[in-house]
């Protein structure tokens, strides 16, 4: 008797779980078909030989991966390090890092400012931060281009006032890319920072002042340690898309100042070396995954200590 009752609950439990799988099936299938699955194909392609007109030949080859690190001279087959790839990866990491730092420098005070407004005003300030985020990234990049180009508003203004006689070349430089990325990704820094600053217990700050801490002492030794999870979250959220940025360097960097994203595109376009492009993509994913893992580990660690 009890056994069959148990059976019945078990049956119901099973049906419950099966229904849940059925309900989520469309979303899962679509994502696997158009996001996860193709990724596996990229991994596969990175181990094939390049075809003559793009695409691949169906034979196993490690040439794609070899080409990530080395170049083979066309004439005498001598092997040398692929300096171009290293310098592009290095530039991407440098630019993404600089972007993250600038976003933090501007984003932290902004998030703090929003978090210390009266509660009913906060959502409006937050809305002002998110508006640019939801407007097309290409348009925002275009807007930056308009401002900094030689015939743009900054140069025109400076020349009218007479500070400079010839326009400053800002377009097609690393500075332009960094400026553009900071502009585009800033909301990604402010939002998680705000989320942690909002939960800040101001009694702790009051206690700090009671114990004769200076403004800076309170900021450096109380506020920043308390919102560290938010700082890490925001930094990762900016660093990852900045590292794999494609539109901003394409528009603001011109043809010369490539980042990883543009290097990958090149292999599928003019380069016609799909396996190399695939291998570069996998490398990028691996770097991103490490950044994410670092974030998750830190998040769980600080979550634990907050309770302890």
């Amino acid at each position, binding site marked *: 008797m009890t056994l069959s009752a148990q059976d019945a609950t078990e049956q119901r439990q099973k049906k419950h779980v099966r229904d849940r799988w059925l309900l989520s099936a469309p979303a899962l299938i679509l994502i696997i078909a158009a996001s996860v699955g193709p990724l596996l194909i990229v991994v596969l392609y990175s181990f094939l030989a390049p075809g003559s007109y793009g695409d691949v030949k169906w034979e196993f080859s490690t040439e794609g991966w070899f080409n990530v690190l080395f170049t083979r001279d066309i004439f005498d087959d001598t092997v040398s390090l692929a300096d171009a790839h290293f310098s592009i990866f290095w530039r991407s990491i440098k630019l993404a890092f600089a972007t993250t730092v600038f976003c933090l420098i501007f984003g932290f005070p902004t998030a703090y*400012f929003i978090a210390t407004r009266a509660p009913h005003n906060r959502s409006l300030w937050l809305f002002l931060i998110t508006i640019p985020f939801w407007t097309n990234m290409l348009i925002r990049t275009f807007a930056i281009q308009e401002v900094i180009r030689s015939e743009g508003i900054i140069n025109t203004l400076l020349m009218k006032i007479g500070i400079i006689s010839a326009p400053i070349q800002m377009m097609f430089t690393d500075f332009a890319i960094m400026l553009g990325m900071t502009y585009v990704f800033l909301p990604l820094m402010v939002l998680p920072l705000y989320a942690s600053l909002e939960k800040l217990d101001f009694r702790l700050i009051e206690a700090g002042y009671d114990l004769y801490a200076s403004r800076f002492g309170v900021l450096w030794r109380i506020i920043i340690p308390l919102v560290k999870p938010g700082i890490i979250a925001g930094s990762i959220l900016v660093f990852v898309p900045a590292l794999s940025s494609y539109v901003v360097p394409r528009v603001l960097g011109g043809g010369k100042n490539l980042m990883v994203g543009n290097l990958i595109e090149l292999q599928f376009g003019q380069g016609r070396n799909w396996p190399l492009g695939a291998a570069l993509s996998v490398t990028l994913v691996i770097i991103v995954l490490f950044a994410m893992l670092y974030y998750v580990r830190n998040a769980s660690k600080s979550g634990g200590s907050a309770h302890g």
Partner: protein
Amino acid sequence: MAKTFSIKRQPGFATIAMFCFFLLYLPIATLVVYSFNSGSSIAIWEGFSLRWFQSAWNNQQVIEASVRSLQIAAVAAVIATACATLAAIATTRTAPYRGLTIKYSIINMPLLVPEIVTAVALLILFSRVKVWTGYSGLGYLIVAHAAFCIPFAYMPIRARLESMDLSLERAASDLYASSFQTFRYVTLPLLWPGILAGLMLAFVISLDDVVITEFVKSGGQDTLPTYMLGQLRRVVTPEMNAISTVFLVISLAIVTLFFFLSRTPQKDNE
């Protein structure tokens, strides 16, 4: 008179914040202002005119690309939202079961993978499928857009489901409503704002996409963003500003609507 000491104040922070807001809006404002320039410069103001809006309106390519963008966004957003709604129901208000975390990770996958990599991956996949099936219509773009829109549609729907009062659904099943009836007459009406919010978010995300579209599209399938990306290489006239301004206004309208929809009903305890 001594100023009262505020424990919340940090010197210079308000200034930096204001500067930040100023910098965020300055380029966009400039862009919008110069779309009304009567001259063909994007830096020297020559008077007010609507000629660039007119010229954009008469540009066949712009109109075609816009219509295509809207078509793709509408279909992809509906598919993504339908899938996301079902998935949200399947992953909330249930005891943890095997595979729940895997589901979460799969649903959030499109957010984690760099867009350029997804774009390349889809280029590879679809170039094969195109050869096999001979089909080269908008379907590929719609499938690609729907997939990366799912996590965006999923977020507000799930948030809504989690903040909903469970007692109404319990009451319904206490009164012998079947699980479908409970869903149809209790859950769905309450969930509706969340679904609409998800739909709009998905729509905007699809409308804005450049990278994946740029790689997946076949010849003659430019959407408005990929058309603009192509034009940015050439000499830019305020016509681009005019297109951008219209685009901005549409996105803004949708996002503002989203903002009001996704606000949880104000409770009186504040």
